[in-house]
């Protein structure tokens, strides 16, 4: 608590337009860099897990007993999962660029507020991207898990269990990435908001 009040008192003293004191923002930006690295890790893990999802199973041909064919499930077979990989790759690249920029802000804290604005604008868009990718992959994976009797889509996760585990873990990790992005946006808004009305 003392640390926080210390930070706030420093923010009161700081005149906003000229370079603010380095220690105030630098702490926040350290957390920022850490979260961005975490976001990169989450994006990387979910892309890798999703793109390594592949399983070959032997299936019997209906009507012809004794004959089996090997069927492969890949993430490329569904446009939803392709979109997921593309979106998460974009967010991964975005997190690399912004963490480098964030480090440069720590080293040279002249344009802290401007940079936190730019970061937060990009973060909101990235959150939209991650949320839509997670929703898309999750919606399709849910049908794969439960099936849909009304339109005759059978569940496939009882056959391709390892494939489905990969998909589920990738979706879970990208959900975690979305939470990290929300935390990043909280942080940026907080650091902008702190300068008002004090």
């Amino acid at each position, binding site marked *: 608590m003392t640390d926080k009040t210390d930070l706030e008192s420093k923010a009161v003293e700081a005149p906003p337009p000229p370079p603010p004191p380095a220690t105030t923002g630098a702490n926040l930006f350290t957390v920022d860099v850490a979260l961005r690295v975490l976001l990169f890790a989450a994006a990387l893990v979910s892309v890798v897990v999703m793109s390594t999802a592949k399983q070959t199973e032997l299936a019997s041909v209906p009507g012809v007993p004794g004959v089996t064919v090997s069927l492969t*499930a890949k993430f490329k077979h569904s446009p*939803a999962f392709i979109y997921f990989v593309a979106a998460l790759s974009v967010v991964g690249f975005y997190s690399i660029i912004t963490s480098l920029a964030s480090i440069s802000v720590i080293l040279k804290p002249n344009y802290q*507020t401007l940079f936190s*604005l730019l970061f937060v604008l990009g973060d909101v868009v990235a959150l939209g991207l991650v*949320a839509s990718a997670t929703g898309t992959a999750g919606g399709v994976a849910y049908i794969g898990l439960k099936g849909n009797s*009304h*339109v005759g*889509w059978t569940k496939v996760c009882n056959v391709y269990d390892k494939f489905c585990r990969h998909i589920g873990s990738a979706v879970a990790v990208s959900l975690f990435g979305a939470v990290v992005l929300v935390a990043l946006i909280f942080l940026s808004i907080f650091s*902008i908001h702190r300068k008002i009305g004090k």
Partner: protein
Amino acid sequence: MPFIQSTQLSVTFLYFFFFFFFIHTNPKTRAERRMDVVKDVKNMVKDESPRRGRSRADFAVRVLGFVVTLVGAVLVGIDKETTTVSVRLVETLPPLHVSVTAKWHYMSAFVYLMVSNAIACSYAAASLAYSSINKNKINAFALIILDLIITSMMFSAVGAAIGVGLIGRSGNSHVKWNKVCYVFGSFCHQMTAAIVMSLLGCFAFLGLVLLSLLKLYKTSSA
């Protein structure tokens, strides 16, 4: 045809709403209103605007989000189609006519879309009421966070609906999920219209967040 009908319905609804909204609540001439917009933009650029609670752009975008999510929720909610499919079990017998029904709550992704549209719509109404009741004391921080949560929820719902709708439209041969949209044509078209409306709502809420962030930044650096 039903697709065109439902799209026309929603577009007409939008037009009527905006007509009512801008003509009836704003008894100014066209030129005056244009001057107001110019003044607003100038203020925005120069940052001379008095610190009102919410800006006019914010209000307009929020109303847009409200209307669009309402239309989206209604379009999903009334989506239902019954058609007859002829099934030929035995070659020699005449085909059997089976009536099949598609309802929106048969697919969990569409339920999610419906629920999040409803939540976003009621949130937009509530925040409009809140910001019009107490204009001066508004917790911008809380409002941005709530907007952000609604935005991400809407994005994920639209994503899920598009993902499932795409399977319904083109099927997936690898896991033997047949396409269903050639049977339920108007159902799919109406769902497409609902998804487009919800997508507009997504971008409206995204724009709200970006607008509030810019405003916050301006007030902090002024």
